[in-house]
């Protein structure tokens, strides 16, 4: 409202000026989104020729990027054929078939290509540094280039969600302190007992506080419960009990999962379960407990023959969990190196960094729908991280983080052609040496792309 009001004043001032000097109109600030408005806008532009000169600088400052004619997989909604996506200063401002693209916009021809939201790599290591990626990360790095070439635009590491901005620190961190880390498993009974005791104490305190609030209405001198002991872990548990944040817990076995379900139901805590290897055996319980899961479809552990119940891994894990209403995000190859080292650049897992979508494709093999598999590495991953207000789908108002591919993103032949982060093209397959030698469709007779060597050296090279 404030903004509107100040703008109104500015408009009035301009009108007053216009009345004094000559018939002038006000230059439009943003391009209209539909064709209907186009004619009107052009009229206004003609009239505003003089004013535009003074505002030209401001318009130059706006960076537009448009992808024209691609099949847009919004993930949050429909798939739009031949639509245009327009980004302004790193934010999506228009999507649709008749978007007016400003002259100053950088235009990417998306004809025959697919546009998806940038992929989100939950649990990554080695790409960005720790909990303050904006203060210690290595930029211009090969791992980052490889991840961008694999379509990854956002990573979560050390409880922080950040973007792979490659050459800049602007708008890098999306959110810090994503979850509260909690340990609760059968291997450490002491740990479990202590956690329950601490939760009890916190719950009692919350009850006392509620009582005190009640008592204060009649007796203004009622004594306030002591709050000084709420420090460290207790602060964390308070946030969990109040529902202000979610608990992240590592759990794989059925027994652990059921213990967590019981804890969730007893205290009303929302859990995010990392691993959840045997989640498919207790999917209804997990769903009832409101738990979310990060799973690896390729996780492989044989069934324990000594038990007479289903155990071990199952490629259907993601599909079964999803069908029962558990929000699922897919993380690759966690079991190889233990949970928490899912997407890294070192060793074997470097391949997963480049092929996050392949991990999601394994979930499709296990019965997850194509669309849901894409969601599990975009919008649902963003929801689990609590950053779905910024990234994860193609929607007006969201960050301009998307990838353009030459086919279905889950297909093994598909290559990422462009990766856009904050409205800036950070990977362009034809101009980057990483995969530029790979011809589309495996056609070795296709001409090599122009200017494919050397990479990232600026225009003069």
């Amino acid at each position, binding site marked *: 409202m404030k903004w509107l009001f100040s703008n109104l004043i500015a408009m009035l001032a301009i009108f007053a000026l216009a009345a004094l000097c000559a018939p002038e109109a006000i230059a439009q600030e943003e391009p209209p989104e539909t064709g209907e408005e186009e004619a009107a806008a052009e009229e206004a532009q003609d009239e505003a020729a003089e004013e535009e000169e003074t505002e030209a600088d401001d318009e130059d400052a706006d960076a537009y990027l448009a992808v024209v004619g691609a099949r847009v997989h919004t993930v949050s909604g429909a798939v739009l054929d031949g639509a245009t996506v327009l980004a302004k200063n790193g934010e999506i401002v228009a999507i649709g078939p008749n978007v007016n693209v400003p002259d100053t916009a950088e235009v990417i021809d998306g004809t025959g290509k697919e546009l998806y939201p940038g992929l989100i790599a939950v649990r990554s290591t080695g790409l960005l540094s720790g909990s303050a990626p904006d203060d210690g990360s*290595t*930029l211009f790095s090969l791992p980052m280039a490889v991840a961008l070439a694999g379509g990854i635009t956002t990573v979560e590491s050390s409880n922080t969600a950040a973007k792979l901005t490659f050459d800049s620190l602007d708008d890098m961190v999306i959110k810090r302190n994503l979850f509260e880390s909690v340990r609760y498993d059968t291997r450490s009974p002491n740990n479990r007992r202590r956690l329950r005791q601490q939760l009890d104490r916190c719950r009692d305190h919350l009850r006392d506080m509620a009582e005190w609030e009640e008592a204060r209405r009649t007796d203004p001198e009622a004594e306030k419960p002591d709050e000084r002991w709420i420090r460290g872990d207790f602060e964390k548990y308070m946030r969990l009990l109040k529902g202000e944040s979610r608990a992240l817990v590592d759990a794989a076995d059925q027994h652990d999962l059921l213990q967590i379900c019981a804890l969730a139901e007893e205290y009303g805590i929302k859990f995010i379960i990392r691993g959840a290897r045997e989640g498919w055996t207790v999917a209804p319980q997990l769903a009832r407990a409101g738990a979310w899961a990060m799973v690896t479809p390729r996780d492989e552990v044989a069934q324990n023959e000594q038990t007479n119940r289903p155990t071990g891994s199952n490629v259907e894990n993601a599909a079964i969990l999803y069908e029962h209403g558990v929000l699922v995000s897919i993380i690759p190859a966690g079991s190889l190196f233990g949970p928490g080292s899912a997407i890294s650049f070192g060793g074997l897992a470097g391949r997963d960094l480049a092929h996050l979508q392949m991990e999601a494709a394994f979930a499709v093999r296990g019965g997850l729908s194509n669309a849901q598999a894409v969601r599990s590495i975009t919008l649902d991953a963003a929801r689990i991280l609590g950053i779905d207000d910024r990234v994860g789908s193609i929607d007006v108002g969201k960050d301009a983080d998307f990838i353009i591919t030459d086919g279905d993103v889950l297909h093994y032949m598909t290559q990422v052609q462009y990766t856009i982060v904050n409205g800036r093209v950070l990977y362009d397959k034809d101009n980057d040496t990483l995969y530029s030698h790979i011809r589309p469709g495996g056609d070795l007779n296709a001409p090599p792309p122009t200017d494919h060597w050397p990479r990232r050296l600026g225009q003069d090279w």
Partner: protein
Amino acid sequence: MLSRRLRIHLLLALGMTLLVAPRMMAHDDEEMVVVRAGQIITITGEVIEQGTIVIVDGRIEAVGANVEYPLNATIIDARDETVMPGFIHPGTRANLPGYSRNGVNAHRLVTDEVYVSELDLDRFVENGFTAAALKPAGSGLPGQAALYHTAGAHDARVIDGSLYLVAPFTSPGRDKGALRSAFRKAKSEIEKIDKARAEWEKKQKEKAAQQKRAEEQKKKENGGGNGGEGNGQSRQEEEEKPAEQPEPEEFKPPQIQAGYEPVVDLLRDPENATPLLLDVSNATCWVHLTDLLAEGWEDVPRTVSLQSRSGDFNHVVDDIAEHADLVIATAQMSVIPMTVIEYNVPAELIAAGCQVALVPTGDNARSLAGFRSSVMELVRNGLSRDDALRSMTINVASAFGVDDRFGSIEEGKVANFMFLDGDALDPLAEVTHVMIGGEMVWTKEGVR
């Protein structure tokens, strides 16, 4: 019309008479040295063939092709040699003790850890360096570098004892936070002082007001009193009183931690403070550095030094040139990581509109000896000869604000020269003599 040959003869004859018959006499109290050189590379002016430099009391009095000098001057005959300004090393730890400091110790001076009498900078002298900046080692803000003459009288060795504050920025995870907290601490110190001053001023005002009130009251009392001797006396007292009043208490600012004092000066008085010298090791560090400075420390006076062998500065050359007027860079081609592509950081910086001061690749004798040839390598890869020569001399001087005294052969500047038996950038040419402050401090073995 005279024939061409005759004209040349006439000119030659004229030149000879000028050389042979100087008409100026040196004063007895002045020590005058005259260098007659085959070629003078002045850096800031034209190259002078068969020129003369007149030096009085260690400073250049005159330089040119035809310069008058008195007969009783000491003449140095270098008519088959090239004379150019001595090199200045922008920062070295050569021959200094191998310890380092961590944390904020910006008040520490390198001059305190160096005994001039024990300073051995021979390998600098032998390779044409007439001055070198010695810097403290460590992380955080380990202290202040000093500019030294590499040879000469001990009491004239230190040129500037407080040249720059060393600030390594080679690991963003460590150095960004360290520098940020140093700035923040210094800022809070400034706020503390300002607050104390405001309080003090308030107190002074209150005191003054109180005094005034007391005086007024006294006056009133006196006015109401009876006339007579006593009254006169008190009036006299009153007149005397203002003179007796004690001087207003001087403001005593709260104590600042010594290590932060230079940082406080950086923020409070950027123009007169000792600037930072930021060692930046790659493009990542550069981006993190600009990110840090954008947090409100843009005005901090600083010079950036690029450690460029494996640095991927190709990503940020334009940005560096946009943010800095003069950058110190290693005299070396760098290799773009993960490729075999060589990249000429100094040449690209200059092309992007930025001045460059070159630093040898290392502190050892070999790197110092190879300085000219490594610059030649840059010239072969696109750096212009002019820019190369400037980058080795005057630009280093202006990086440290001593270009009024050093870095070129001009009137009024200190006579710090190197003599070469060939072209300045010819790797095979050798340094034959080195002059500091008009005195020959080194002569190559076997040279007369």
